[in-house]
C-alpha cells in the first residue's frame, strides 16, 4: 500500500473516530445526569480522532524517512562480495538498476542473475516493510481509538487536549517561514562551499572574466589543471548594476511624480481610476515584460538610436533597464504614495500659511519629511531590480563583458544562474555549482538592501506616530 493511500485511510479513520467520540460523549452525559461535561461533544470527538490518527501518522512519517535507507543497506549487504567494495557513485548506479528491476520498471532481459536475486530480495523487503508498517499503524490507531474512547468522562478536559494540539500545529506552520530561510541559506552555503573547493573565492569575487567552459563530465582529469574556465563575478555584477541603475533612472522620477500628482493634485475620482490602472503594471508577469522588451522595445530603441546616429543593440542593458523601470514604477509610486499621505497635514498647512505655493510646499516640506520612507522604497525597488530574472534573460543580450556602455549587451547574475543550471552540465561540476555561489551573492545583496530599507522605514514611522 502506498503512503498516500495510507494517509487517505487515516483521514477516513479520523472522520469515523470523530463521530464515535461525539456519540460516546453524549452517551456518557446521559449516563451521568446532573454532572456537567467539561467540554463540548465536538471536543471529545476531535480528541478521539486525534488519538486514533496522530500516533499512527508519526510512525508513518518516521517509517517513510528511514525505511528506504534501511532496505538499501540490507540489499547492499546481500550483494556478492565483489560489489560491496564499490565506491559511492558506482554503488548508486547499481542500486538504481536494482530498484528499477524491483519496481518492474527496467529491462529485465539484460539483467544479470545477481541483479535479479537482489531485486527479488529488495521486493520482498519492501513488501514486508509495508506489511509491518500497516500492521503497526493499525495497532496504534485502534489502541488510540479504544483507549481514548474509554477515557471519555465528564471530568476529562478534552478541549484542553485538542487546543494544545491545534496550537502546536499553528506554531509549526509559523516556523515554516523560518525553515525556508534556513533551507535557503544552508543549501546555498553547502553548494557554494563545494564550488569553492574547485575555485578560489578570490578568483570568484574579484575575477574580471566570465568564461565557464562547458562541462558534461564534471571534474575529470583535465578539468582541474587550469582548463576549467574562469568564474569572475565582476562582469556579471557590473551588468546587474548597470541594468538596475537604468531601471531606477527610469522608475524613480516617473514613480515619484506619479505618487506626488496622485496624492497631492489629482481629484479623488481621477485618483480612484488611475491608481489601480497603474498598479496593473505591477501584476503583469515578468515574462510578459521580457517578451515586450524583446519584440517591441528593443527594435524601437534600435530605430531610435539609428535616427540619432547611435548604435544600440536590440538586446542591450538599455532595453532591459527601460522595461524593468516600467515594471517598478507602480512599486515606487504606491509605496511613496503611502508615505506622502502619512506626512501630517499640519506641516502642509503651516507651509501654505506662510505663503508657499503648493509645489514649494511639496518640494521643500513634504518630500524632505518623507525622504527616509522614499529612500526605503527606492532601496526595495533596487533589490527587486537586482533580483529580476525573466526580463534580463530575454532582453539583456547575455554577453558577460565588463562594460559601462548601456547600448551594449550585458549579462547579469540572475541570467547566469539560469544559464548555468539549465544547460547539460553535470550537477556536481563547478559549472553548475557556480549558480549557487551566484545565488548566495544575490541573496546577500538583496537581504542587505531589504534590511536597510526596513530599518529606514521603521525609523521614519516612529517619528510621526
Amino acid at each position, binding site marked *: 500500500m502506498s503512503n498516500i493511500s495510507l494517509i487517505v485511510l487515516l483521514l477516513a479513520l479520523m472522520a469515523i473516530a470523530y463521530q464515535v467520540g461525539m456519540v460516546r460523549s453524549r452517551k456518557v452525559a446521559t449516563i451521568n445526569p446532573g454532572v456537567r461535561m467539561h467540554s463540548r461533544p465536538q471536543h471529545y470527538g476531535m480528541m478521539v480522532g486525534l488519538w486514533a490518527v496522530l500516533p499512527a501518522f508519526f510512525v508513518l512519517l518516521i517509517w517513510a524517512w528511514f525505511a528506504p535507507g534501511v532496505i538499501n543497506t540490507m540489499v547492499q549487504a546481500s550483494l556478492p562480495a565483489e560489489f560491496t567494495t564499490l565506491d559511492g557513485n558506482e554503488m548508486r548506479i547499481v542500486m538504481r538498476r536494482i530498484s528499477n528491476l524491483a519496481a518492474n520498471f527496467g529491462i529485465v532481459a539484460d539483467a544479470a542473475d545477481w541483479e535479479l536475486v537482489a531485486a527479488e530480495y529488495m521486493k520482498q523487503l519492501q513488501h514486508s516493510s509495508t506489511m509491518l508498517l500497516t500492521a503497526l499503524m493499525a495497532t496504534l490507531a485502534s489502541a488510540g481509538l479504544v483507549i481514548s474512547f474509554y477515557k471519555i468522562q465528564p471530568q476529562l478536559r478534552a478541549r484542553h487536549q485538542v*487546543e494544545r494540539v491545534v*496550537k502546536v500545529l*499553528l*506554531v509549526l*506552520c*509559523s516556523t*515554516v*517561514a*523560518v525553515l*525556508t*530561510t534556513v*533551507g*535557503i541559506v544552508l*543549501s*546555498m552555503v553547502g553548494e557554494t562551499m563545494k564550488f569553492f573547493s574547485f575555485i578560489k573565492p578570490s578568483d570568484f569575487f574579484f575575477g574580471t572574466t566570465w568564461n565557464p567552459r562547458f562541462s558534461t563530465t564534471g571534474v575529470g582529469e583535465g578539468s582541474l589543471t587550469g582548463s576549467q574556465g574562469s568564474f569572475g563575478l565582476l562582469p556579471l555584477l557590473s551588468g546587474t548594476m548597470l541594468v538596475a541603475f537604468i531601471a531606477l533612472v527610469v522608475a524613480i*522620477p*516617473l514613480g515619484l*511624480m*506619479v505618487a506626488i*500628482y496622485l496624492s*497631492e*493634485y489629482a481629484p479623488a475620482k481621477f485618483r480612484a481610476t*488611475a491608481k489601480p*490602472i*497603474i498598479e496593473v*503594471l505591477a*501584476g*503583469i*508577469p*515578468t*515574462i*510578459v515584460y*521580457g*517578451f515586450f522588451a524583446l*519584440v517591441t522595445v528593443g527594435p524601437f530603441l534600435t530605430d531610435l538610436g539609428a535616427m540619432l546616429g547611435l548604435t544600440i543593440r536590440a538586446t542591450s542593458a538599455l532595453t532591459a533597464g527601460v522595461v524593468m523601470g*516600467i515594471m517598478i*514604477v507602480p512599486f515606487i509610486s504606491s509605496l511613496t504614495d503611502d508615505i506622502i499621505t502619512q506626512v501630517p497635514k499640519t506641516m502642509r498647512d503651516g507651509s501654505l500659511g506662510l505663503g508657499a*505655493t503648493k*509645489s*514649494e510646499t*511639496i*518640494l521643500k516640506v513634504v518630500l524632505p519629511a518623507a525622504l527616509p520612507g522614499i529612500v526605503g522604497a527606492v532601496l*526595495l525597488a533596487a*533589490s*527587486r531590480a537586482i*533580483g*529580476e*530574472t*525573466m526580463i534580463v*534573460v*530575454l532582453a539583456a543580450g547575455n554577453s558577460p563583458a565588463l562594460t559601462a556602455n548601456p547600448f551594449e549587451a550585458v549579462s547579469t547574475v*540572475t541570467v547566469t*544562474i*539560469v544559464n548555468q543550471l*539549465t544547460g547539460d552540465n553535470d550537477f556536481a561540476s563547478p559549472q553548475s555549482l557556480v*549558480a549557487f555561489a551566484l*545565488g548566495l551573492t544575490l541573496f546577500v545583496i*538583496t*537581504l542587505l538592501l*531589504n534590511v536597510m530599507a526596513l530599518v529606514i522605514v521603521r525609523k521614519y514611522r516612529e517619528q510621526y506616530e
Partner: protein
Amino acid sequence: MKVAEPLIKPVITAGTVQQKVNASLARRHRKERVFKSFGLAAVLASLALVLILFINIFSKGLPAFWQSAITLDIYFDPQVVNISEKPVQAANESDNAFRQRDIEWQTEVGFINFNRLITDSLEKVLPDARQHRRDLQRIVTSGERFALRDMVVQDPGIIGQTRTLHLLTDANIDVWLKGNIDRSLPDAMQQLSPKMREWVQQLSEQGLIQNRFSFALFMNADSRSSLASAGLAGAFMGSLYMMLVVIVLAVPMGVAAAIYLEEFAPKNRFTDFVEVNINNLAAVPSIVFGLLGASVFIGWFNLPMSAPIVGGLVLSLMTLPTVIIATRSTLKAIPPSIRQAALGLGASKMQAIFHHVLPLAIPGILTGAILGVAQALGEAAPLLLIGMKSFVASVPGSPFDQSTALPVQIFLWQGNELRNFFEARTSAAIIVLLALMISLNALAIWLRKKYEKRW
C-alpha cells in the same frame, strides 16, 4: 581697505517685501504650473505605457486565435487503412492479456500511412498534385495524421466512409496567408516553395483554406514536429496542478502562521525573528527559491525533475509570505471587541478566534490568497531551475508527471526559430495567461467589495 558691512542689515520695509513677493509671483506660479504638468505627464505616461503594452500584446496575439485550416473530404480508404478488427475483451480474458492485444492493435494502426489519406484527397482538388509530391505532403501540418489515427482508433467503423474535416495547414502557410512574411522576397528567402504558394492562393480563393478558430491552441500539448498544432493544454494543466499544490499548502499554512503570530504569539525575540524573517522572505528574488528547489527538493528529497509537484512546492514557499502578511492585516483590522465579547461569554481563546474572528476574516484571507495564487501563476524564473523548461509533448496526468507551465511555455515559444509564426502564438499564450490573472484579480476585488466591512 573695504568698509566692514554693517552688523545689522537695514530693516526691510513692508513695501519692499510686497514688491519682492509680487515680482516673484509670476515666476513662482509658472513653476507651480510646470511642476503640476510634470506630475500629470508622469501619470499620463504611465497610463499610456499600460495601454501600449496591452495594445501591443493584443494586436499581436489575437490573430493567432484563428489559424488557417483546409477543408477536405477525407475518404478512409479500406485499402490504405487495412487493419484487423478492434479487439474486444472476451469474457474469459484477463485484463493484462486484453491490454496486450489492444496495444498490438494500436501499434498496427500506428503503422498505417495516414498521410496517404490526406494526399489522396488533396489530389482531388489539386489537379497537378502528382508532379509535386513533396510539396503536397507539406500542405497539412504533420500532426493532423494523428488526429486521423485517433478517429480510427475511436471508431473503426469509419473505415470506408468519407468525412469532411477541417485540417490545420502547415505553419508556414498560416504565416503566408496572414501576411507575416514579405511576399516580394525572392524564392530563396521564402518559407514556401513557388508551387505551394500557387496552390495556397488557389485553395484560399476556392474557400477551401480558411481562417478558423484554433481549438488546437487550447486542446493540444506543445509540439516541435508539427508547429501549427502546438497548443497550451500541457502547460495549462501543469500550471493548474501547481496552483492546486499552492492552494492546498501555502494557503492553510499561511493562514495558520498568521493566526499564531497575530493572536497567540508572545512578544519575544523568537516572534520578532519570525516576523523579520517573513518580511525578508517576501522580498527575496524568486530565482533564489528556484535554487532552493533544485538543491533541496530535487537534490535531497529525490523528487522528480520537471514535475508540477516540485514547482508547486517552490511556488508555495514563495507565496507563503504574501498569504501570511495579507491574513495578518485582515486579522488586525477586526476589532478587539469581538474577541472580548466571545471571551466574556466563556469561550476559550481558541474558540473565540476560530468561531468568531476567523469567519469575519475570511473575505480578506480569500483576497490575499487569490492574489498570492495569481502571483504564483505568473512566475517563471524559479521553474526554469527545476527542469520545467524541458520540452514535454504530452498533457500531464498527475502532479508527478513531467510538465511545463504557462509562463515557461511563453518563454519556450518566444525562442522558437519560426519567429513569424510563434511571435503571434506567444502573444496568444500571453493573452491566455493575462486573462487568467485578470480574472483572478477581478475575483479578489469583487470579494473585497462584496464583503468589505468598515468597523
